[in-house]
């Protein structure tokens, strides 16, 4: 397949899978009472996009995925924190990918952390609710736990895609 077409197909598929993951998270009720605390399964899609399609496409996919997800499952107001959170995670992970020594787990954990901190910061400012700040210490262990999980998920999906789909990795 022509590479531009292939990338477009991948972008569409990644957005669709990302939305499905967000919906699964929503169905399982993992979103919780706090806007900042959730596992962020869709972060897997951002990692895959960075690995398969490069930084620019990953940013676009992340932006569309989080905006659509917020509009579909949680209402417009939640887009205010989910979009900056997802984009922040994407930028942090894109920067960390410059280091060849880091594995998927480390990059994913840093992304989850960036996502949570951005969301907490935005929701504390928007809701004028200082109470959220007192949950910040939870963000560290939570990012590590879910980050490793999503990072390994992305690693195995990536390995399968590259073996069977003959997809080249984007080298930084």
């Amino acid at each position: 397949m022509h590479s531009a077409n292939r990338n477009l197909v991948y972008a569409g598929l990644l957005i669709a899978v990302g939305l499905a993951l967000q919906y699964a998270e929503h169905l399982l009720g993992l979103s919780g009472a706090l806007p900042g605390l959730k596992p962020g399964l869709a972060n897997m899609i951002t990692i895959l996009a960075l690995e398969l399609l490069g930084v620019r496409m990953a940013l676009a996919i992340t932006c569309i995925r989080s905006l659509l997800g917020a509009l579909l499952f949680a209402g417009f107001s939640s887009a205010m924190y989910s979009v900056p959170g997802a984009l922040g995670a994407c930028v942090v992970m894109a920067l960390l990918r410059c280091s060849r020594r880091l594995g998927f787990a480390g990059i994913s954990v840093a992304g989850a952390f960036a996502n949570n901190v951005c969301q907490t910061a935005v929701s504390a400012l928007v809701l004028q609710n200082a109470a959220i700040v007192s949950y910040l210490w939870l963000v560290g262990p939570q990012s590590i736990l879910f980050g490793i999980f999503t990072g390994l998920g992305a690693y195995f999906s990536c390995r399968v895609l590259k073996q069977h789909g003959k997809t080249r990795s984007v080298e930084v």
Partner: protein
Amino acid sequence: MRKSFTKWDVSIFIAVLGLAFGLYFLCTGFLGEPVSIEVEVAGKPYARYEMKRYHQPEEIQIRTQYGSNTLRISDKDVCVLDADCPDKLDVKQGAIHKSGETIVCLPNKLVIKISGERDLDALSE
């Protein structure tokens, strides 16, 4: 292809933990010493208690259309002694004593929080 897990990832984990605790202490430090206890019912301010007036701990009952909770307020902390909600998570949580901390009773739509000397309002201006 990149590895799934390397020893360098551990340094990321340590940095993330350190940053989370650092941010937490920075933010709670920013809020200052605890000053008052604010009670919200269904998202609206319901009552406010100045902590320095409670050298003697006092029991206060909050009875609303959503349910009833009994608080114990002192000049250092606040806790929920009893509640008619089914899960009693607010009672099990125990006392809170730092600025920004909250006790939430979802069934009774009750939020109890400790306000500090400074508010986040100052941050967004």
